[in-house]
């Protein structure tokens, strides 16, 4: 009897929790039950953290300034905890000795010195290259748009090494650390995607909002425009627009330009979704009530209609994000997007295109893995969010 009453109490509690939960609590509860989306979300979080704290985590400057001139085309160096000479709590690397002379035909030959005395130990939180946080130095065409915020300068890094270099993912042709470059590339690709999605989103809200709210002939004309832009294959269109960028532009200008292009072409799909949501919502009674109270269209759209499907919009944004990253990568890959010294995933992929890379320098492909993981985790998270965006919908088994 006791147990039964307790069970009923539990049930009531669960129901109360369900009915009193906010929409986002319900969405999260449903999202959590989707295991693949949760795992993907974890990966995504790691990726974003790696990107945001790229300066702190990477031991070297990703640009040419941080190059290791003694270790070009160098293989990845994996820190060890033990070897034949015993165990060490601090991970260490072997010392690399290079030699060139007549007997090697004057080419550098690397040998690992495995003696215990020659071990190089990994150090944590050492001082390294200077990096800035919250510093902006934007140099757009036209003096008026230039602005500069000094920000803070830091020198500490997550890890380094006592002497010599530590290159977890190896180095490239110029001796730049691929680990540092990959982290910065994740950051740049995410940043381009974010700006692109943001611009696309604002355009989509305006165009889709007007089209869906007013309906009628305005909707017809807007749909015509949207369909026209949608029917053109986007990457060729990106290419046309990107080829406008004069080669003498600085890399920051290029970055903003490419991000803007991505946004300017990416809006139609989003706009269509906003319109569909609006069309189904605008005949609801609460909209009529607001209208009768004399609210203006912009007030109704922004205060009543948009909040009613915020969760859907977030889902759409997450879903459209990987496409932005993919487009940026494709553009940079053919040389029309970002260029060195900016590191983006596309720029790094471009480095891996040569045949000798696969034969001799396989570690150039490490950024590719990051790229695939990034896109995959975005797709899975987006999928999971889409399933959980409507918490009141009955789940199919």
């Amino acid at each position, binding site marked *: 009897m006791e147990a039964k009453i307790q069970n009923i109490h539990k049930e009531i509690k669960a129901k109360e929790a369900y009915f009193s939960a906010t929409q986002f609590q319900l969405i999260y509860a449903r999202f959590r039950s989707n295991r*693949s989306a949760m795992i993907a979300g974890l990966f995504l979080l790691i990726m974003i953290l790696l990107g945001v704290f790229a300066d702190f985590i990477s031991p070297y400057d990703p640009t040419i300034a941080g190059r290791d001139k003694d270790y070009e085309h160098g293989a990845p160096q994996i820190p060890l905890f033990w070897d034949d000479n015993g165990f060490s709590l601090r991970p260490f690397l072997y010392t690399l000795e290079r030699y060139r002379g007549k007997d090697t035909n004057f080419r550098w030959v690397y040998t690992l010195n495995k003696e215990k005395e020659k071990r190089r130990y990994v150090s944590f939180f050492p001082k390294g290259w200077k990096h800035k946080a919250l510093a902006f130095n934007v140099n757009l065409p036209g003096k008026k748009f230039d602005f500069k915020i000094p920000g803070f300068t830091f020198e500490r890094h997550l890890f380094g090494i006592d002497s010599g270099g530590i290159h977890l993912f190896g180095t490239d042709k110029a001796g730049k650390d691929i680990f540092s470059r990959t982290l910065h590339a994740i950051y740049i690709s995410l940043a381009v995607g974010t700006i692109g999605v943001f611009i696309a989103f604002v355009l989509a809200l305006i165009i889709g909002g007007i089209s869906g709210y007013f309906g009628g002939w305005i909707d017809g004309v807007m749909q*015509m*425009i949207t*369909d*026209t*832009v*949608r*029917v*053109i*294959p*986007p*990457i*060729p*269109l990106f*290419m*046309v*627009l*990107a*080829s*406008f960028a004069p080669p003498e532009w600085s890399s920051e200008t290029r970055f903003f330009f490419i991000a803007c292009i991505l946004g300017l072409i990416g809006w139609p799909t989003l706009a269509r979704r906003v319109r569909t949501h609006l069309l189904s919502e605008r005949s609801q009674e609460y909209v009529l009530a607001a209208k009768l109270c004399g609210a203006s269209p912009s007030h109704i759209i922004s205060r009543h209609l948009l909040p009613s499907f915020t969760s859907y919009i977030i889902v759409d944004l997450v879903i459209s994000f*990987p496409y932005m990253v*993919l487009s940026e*990568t*494709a553009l940079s*890959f*053919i*040389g*029309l997007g970002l260029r060195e010294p900016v590191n983006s995933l596309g720029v790094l*992929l471009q480095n*891996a*295109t040569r*045949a000798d*890379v*696969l*034969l001799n320098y396989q570690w150039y492909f490490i950024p*590719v893995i990051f*790229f*695939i993981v990034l*896109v*995959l985790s975005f*797709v*899975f998270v987006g999928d999971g969010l889409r399933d959980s965006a409507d918490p009141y919908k009955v789940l*199919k088994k």
Partner: protein
Amino acid sequence: MINFIQFIITRAFLAIITLLAVSFIVFALMELVPANCAERYLAFKNTQGSNITIEDIEAEERRLGLDRPFLVRWSTWVSNIVIKGDFGDSCILRVRINDLMKDKFFLSLGICLTALLLAYLIAVPVGIISATTKFRSLDNALKFISYLGLAIPNFLLALIIILFSVVFFGDTMTGLFTPEYVNAPWSYDKFKNFLSRAWLPIFILGWSATAFALQTVRALISDEYEKLYVVAAKARGISGMTLLWKYPAKHSLGPIINSLGFDLNRIFNELPIVALILMLTESGALLVESLARTNDQQLAGAIIILLTGTIIMLNFLTDVLLAVIDPRIRKGVMGGS
């Protein structure tokens, strides 16, 4: 019947309007490039040592008709394309665009349409299996593969395949023909040679198209499969393939046909970069070359118009096809007959 013809005419009219709008956008983009054709022609002469004045440029502009207003130039450009099939001259390479293109566009079209066909040949049966299977792990595995189709972009796949074929076969597998056939006239042998090379781009372009189509088919079938009418049919004792073909598959045919246009769009989208990596001698590679290397906007505009025109045409055809086979739309079109 009258209604049906009326429907086709309206659709054709809409398609033409869209095409005109696209051509306007593309033409405007071509015009936005700094330096027009006259300046480019004369800049070339300038490098040859002759002095160029403003008057020379203006005379050249008059000769090329560049002094006329924008709308007039746009309408001549469009009408030349439509009536004579003439895309004008490329002012960087100083040759007619039609000579540059030759059969290149039809090569691309052949490759892309085959890739589309291949994608659906694989996606429809596999998607149905994925939606109706009792084994969740099989469904999840297929789902994961289809996500990989998005996450591994075509150009990356092409790159990996090329690199592996260099290592293991010693042949790059690039290009559409082996060297001896590149400039040969079309013949049965050349066609065979083409097929021996073209399967790779077709496979690569079909790869992500298959992934997308798989997701579409899976979603459609699994949505329909749980509806009450299917349950009712099951209760009547219909099962297996009969059940599938009689109801859900028939129902999902409409949306699948509808999505063909956008799938072709997606394939065209990836064509240029794949073509660049595989060194295909067709219009996709020409497009990249014209934009990334020579900055030849006329050529690029012509190719984009052709690609978009094909998509619009396909959309029109699928609309008509849908009206013919889908009784719901047919009824709407024919007015209840």
